[in-house]
């Protein structure tokens, strides 16, 4: 029995290493998931903000009316950016899209002028778009309002379940991570139980015993998070190399938040479960340790 105490005191260091590694592994997976969740949101936002609404103008409206309409549209909260497309610009765009010029066939330009605008992502849903369309069509200068309904439907159908699915999965995953980390750390603390008891037997206070282990836990938690972040950075840059389009979705703001979250989760879980298991062993009777 005496031997148990001896060897376990010796093993306490490598098991710290294992717990750092274990914690950083789960944090790494969590971090990568977080990055994917951010990208999924960015991707849906990216698609949504590329939906274009075209407001076609009647022929022969006064420039005053067209300026008024442009003003009206520009001031709408749902407009992200807009462009006034003159008849001539419409023709050039038409040809630019690879269509044949009609100059030889027709005298007049049949394409109407339009105001094209892109929407802010939060306004891209079927009801809102219908309301916007209705509102604009009431304007006397407007002949027609068009937007790619089928594309909108597709975006809404495909993007929504992904984001929600991600959220649910992320929550479940976080809980699993917490349990895993808790177990890893408790295992590491298990080998410290004789050390804890020894300190207690000689009259060390709980605070004195717990303090250095808590400090260690904060350091270990931070180390794990940093290791995990290095891994996430590595994997993300590897993926960006494979799929260059991903670079367009880069968002330093959210990435910083992700880093901070991993750091906080790492330190917090490490500290709480270390402290909990120290207290557990402090409360235990010596006989129960074997």
């Amino acid at each position, binding site marked *: 029995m005496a031997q148990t105490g001896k*060897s376990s005191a010796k093993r306490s260091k490598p098991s710290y290493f294992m717990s750092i590694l274990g914690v950083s592994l789960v944090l790494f997976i969590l971090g990568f998931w977080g990055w994917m969740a951010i990208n999924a949101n960015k991707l849906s936002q990216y698609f949504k903000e590329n939906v274009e609404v075209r407001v076609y103008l009647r022929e022969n409206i006064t420039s005053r009316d067209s300026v008024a309409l442009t003003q009206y549209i520009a001031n709408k909260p749902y407009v992200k950016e807009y462009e006034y497309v003159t008849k001539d610009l419409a023709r050039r765009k038409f040809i630019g899209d690879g269509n044949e010029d009609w100059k030889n066939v027709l005298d007049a330009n049949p394409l109407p002028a339009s105001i094209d605008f892109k929407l802010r992502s939060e306004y891209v849903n079927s009801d809102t778009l219908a309301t916007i369309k209705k509102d604009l069509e009431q304007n006397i200068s407007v002949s027609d309002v068009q937007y790619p309904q089928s594309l909108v439907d597709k975006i809404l159908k495909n993007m929504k379940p992904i984001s929600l699915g991600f959220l649910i999965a992320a929550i479940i995953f976080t809980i699993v991570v917490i349990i895993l980390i808790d177990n890893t750390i408790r295992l590491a603390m298990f080998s410290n139980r004789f050390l804890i008891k020894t300190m*207690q037997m000689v009259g060390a206070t709980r605070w*004195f015993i717990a303090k250095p282990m808590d400090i260690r836990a904060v350091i270990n938690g931070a180390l794990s998070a940093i290791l995990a972040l290095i891994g996430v950075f590595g994997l993300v840059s590897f993926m960006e190399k494979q799929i260059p389009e991903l670079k367009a979705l880069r968002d330093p703001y959210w990435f910083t938040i992700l880093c901070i979250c991993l750091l906080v989760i790492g330190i917090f879980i490490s500290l709480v479960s270390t402290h909990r298991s120290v207290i557990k062993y402090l409360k235990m009777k010596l006989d129960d340790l074997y």
Partner: protein
Amino acid sequence: MSDKIVEITNANIYQGDNLVLEDVNVTVNKGEFVYLVGKTGTGKSSLLKTLYGDLQLKQGTGTVVGFNLKEMDWKKVPFLRRNLGVVFQDFQLLTDRNVNDNLKFVLRATGWKDEKLMDEKIADVLDKVGLKSKGFKMPFEMSGGEQQRVDIARALLNSPKLILADEPTGNLDPETSDEIMQLLFHICRDYGTAIIMATHDYIVISKYPARTLKTERGRVEDNATISI
């Protein structure tokens, strides 16, 4: 406090819900050496645990080195233990550091700060147990008897008035047991430290006779009052 180091009256000692010892009345005076004997499972360790605050005293009254056992809680136990020395088999040295560091660790844990005073104290207790020059040895480089001496040195660090020893010679050969017993008696005599020692070793008792308490049938009997 007078000279009474331990005073237990009408105490019932429980392990969980089981009554292990009933109506315990024990008084130990300054500088007294007391054996605690009895068959396996009769409650020797339980009595010692009550004395060092590992078991709550639920019924009866008890005072140990001036601490009221009835008022013991996890906040006060550390301060009780600083006034005790505890020696027993399961309570080993830390193997990842040498003897000096083992002892220094205990001093730090009990509130010592001054390096020089700590070094002096360590030299002092090692001298007392006859290990003056062995401070730099690792525990695994020492014999069982030497390790037991270090345990005793550790118990002496905070100059306790009472040492509680649970089978300190249990693992040792007769010669080494002899050395340890001589050391304990020397500490008891020369520093006025009271010692309560649980043991199964009747050879030791006959060689170094002293007052003896016996746990039997749920009671503690004292050969100072009745013959056993």
